[in-house]
């Protein structure tokens, strides 16, 4: 039961990490390697607003998420747009930007002090015989809420439907008047926002460090590889699989085995079904 609850929490955390990345990839086929950087950007800026500028917690959060969403969209609009269509350049460019941001934080010394965000609700509760803190329950709640609202958004709103259309068939959507560039900017902004929301609910569990940024990136990509790039259900499946496996490994072998689990699963996925559990990536064979 312990494993079930914490496994669930971990899975939701991983799904949250991956959602921003998966959204951007699913819509504009852009692998946004600045994802991790945007995540900690929100974390740090919230901390700054809260502790240096003196805005209240909710305000800091909202402000940070807004700002980082704008930054995300701007990154596409002014920088990545120039390399669109060349996936390798996109990766290199977004990776460079991401590294620049993260290392900038490192240089400014964001590792000496301990940077933390306070949890929303303190304390724990006894759930089905397991002691779990409210923050983690909040994470589950937020995670599920996000998944649900994303589903509603992409199925029932105009913008959301256009995102799905582009994801399924770029050319057909272009002919229906949907502009891929504008949609990509929106996608990147939303992806950043998702990263931000994930950040503010998850970061209170620990510190904000530069290493976290890399961690988020690695985990997000791992989930997408295992679950299948370009598939929402895949993100779920991947997150669940990795999430529970990590907790199992921690329980049976120790906490440092988490990364090993990630590596193992990527290798196994690549060997057995390279496109991922539910991946709809066609292999090169079918691209005629």
């Amino acid at each position, binding site marked *: 039961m312990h494993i079930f609850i914490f496994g669930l929490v971990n899975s939701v955390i991983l799904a949250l990490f991956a959602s921003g990345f998966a959204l951007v990839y699913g819509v504009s086929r852009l*692998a946004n*390697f600045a994802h991790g950087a945007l995540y900690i950007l929100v974390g740090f800026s919230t901390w700054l607003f809260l502790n240096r500028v003196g805005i209240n917690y909710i305000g800091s959060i909202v402000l940070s998420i807004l700002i980082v969403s704008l930054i995300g969209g701007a990154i596409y609009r002014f*920088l*990545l747009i*120039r*390399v669109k269509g060349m*996936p*390798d*350049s996109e*990766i*290199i*460019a977004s*990776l*460079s*930007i991401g*590294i*620049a941001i993260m*290392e*900038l934080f*490192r*240089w400014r010394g964001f590792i000496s002090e301990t940077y933390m965000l306070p949890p929303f609700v303190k304390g724990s509760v006894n759930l089905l015989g397991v002691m779990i803190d409210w923050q983690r329950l909040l994470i589950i709640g937020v995670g599920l809420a996000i998944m649900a609202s994303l589903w509603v958004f992409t199925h029932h709103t105009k913008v959301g439907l256009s995102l799905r259309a582009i994801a399924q068939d770029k050319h057909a959507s272009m002919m229906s008047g949907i502009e891929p560039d504008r949609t990509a900017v929106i996608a990147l902004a939303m992806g950043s926002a998702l990263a931000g929301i994930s950040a503010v609910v998850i970061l209170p569990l620990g510190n904000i460090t530069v290493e976290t940024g*890399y961690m988020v990136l*690695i985990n997000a*990509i*791992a989930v997408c*590889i295992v679950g299948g*790039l370009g598939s929402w259900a895949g993100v779920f499946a991947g997150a669940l699989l990795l999430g529970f496996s990590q907790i199992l490994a921690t329980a049976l072998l120790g906490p*440092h*085995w*988490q*990364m*090993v689990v*990630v*590596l193992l699963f*990527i*290798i196994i996925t*690549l*060997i057995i079904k*390279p*496109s991922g559990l539910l991946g709809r*990536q066609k*292999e*090169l*064979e079918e*691209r*005629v």
Partner: protein
Amino acid sequence: MDSATQERRKERIDRGIKVRTEGIYAISSWQGITYMALPTVAFVVGLLILPLVVPTMAWQRIIVIACLFALLALVFDFLTNFVGIVCLGGAFFTGVGGYISGLLNSAWGIPIIFTIPIATLGGAIICTLFLLPCLPMRGIYFAIVSLMYPLLFARVIQALNIFGGTDGLPGLSTFPNIWVELYLVLPIIILLTFGIRRLVNEDFGIVLRAIRDNDQAVKASNINITWFKTKAVLLGSAIGCFAGAYLAHLYGWMGLSLFALDFSIFPIAATVVGGGGTLVGPVIGAFILAPLSEMLRAFGPLRVVFYSLILAGLVIFSTEGLVPYLERKYHQFERWIEV
């Protein structure tokens, strides 16, 4: 015609001497021969005497580092621009190569002269095996996975505390002296640069280039492109693992830093600066960036910021690179003409 509104445009024409040295006519005059041979000679001689003209031993060390980065850049250029495989995992090669040779040396006391070749070959096989499943897939998979591997491997080593864990393993054998360090690797760079250049013009290399241009057509021509890509990756990872092994013995220390992102990013930057697709360009790019990087070392992480921004800028604004620019200047001249 109103001369005030006359337009001008730039025109590029081959220099006289270039035209006179087309094909067989190159050997018809001393000037011709000099003209054709100068760039190559300058490159080779320049590299070989470089260590002799720099002021201090610290600089000589930097040259060795530049050499190793040049090797990685060569691999990146080869794989990306001649085979069409974008490899973002330079650090994967250096890490695997470095760790293999380090382990052989520290656990069994095998001397450098053996650890480096074994690490080169063994590392190549291991790296290729790990990257094999990505080869039939769309290019982006290879890029992502190759980028991930060094990050993952480093963290796994750290987590499991194997192979020296976070602190690494010190006390490896080192090279006898700086001259060996330098003059072992410099000729190798020269050999490899010209060797790979030769390779891409041989029939085997032609097939690799065709795979980059149009893999479907190559498949339709009864060629197993996965096998060819595998061979290309074997070659590339061998060179990368060699660089990693060399590094380990350079510092006499094997540690997580062998998997550092630097080794993935730097070759890309060097290639972009020097000019992709030229093979020589990345090598020169490495020799430009390495000293620059050392000079910025005092700034700590800011150095990486600087790098990444430059790389992002160059990639985004698609510059042609140093070598193509120089080539153009050498072979052609520009002038304004009236339209």
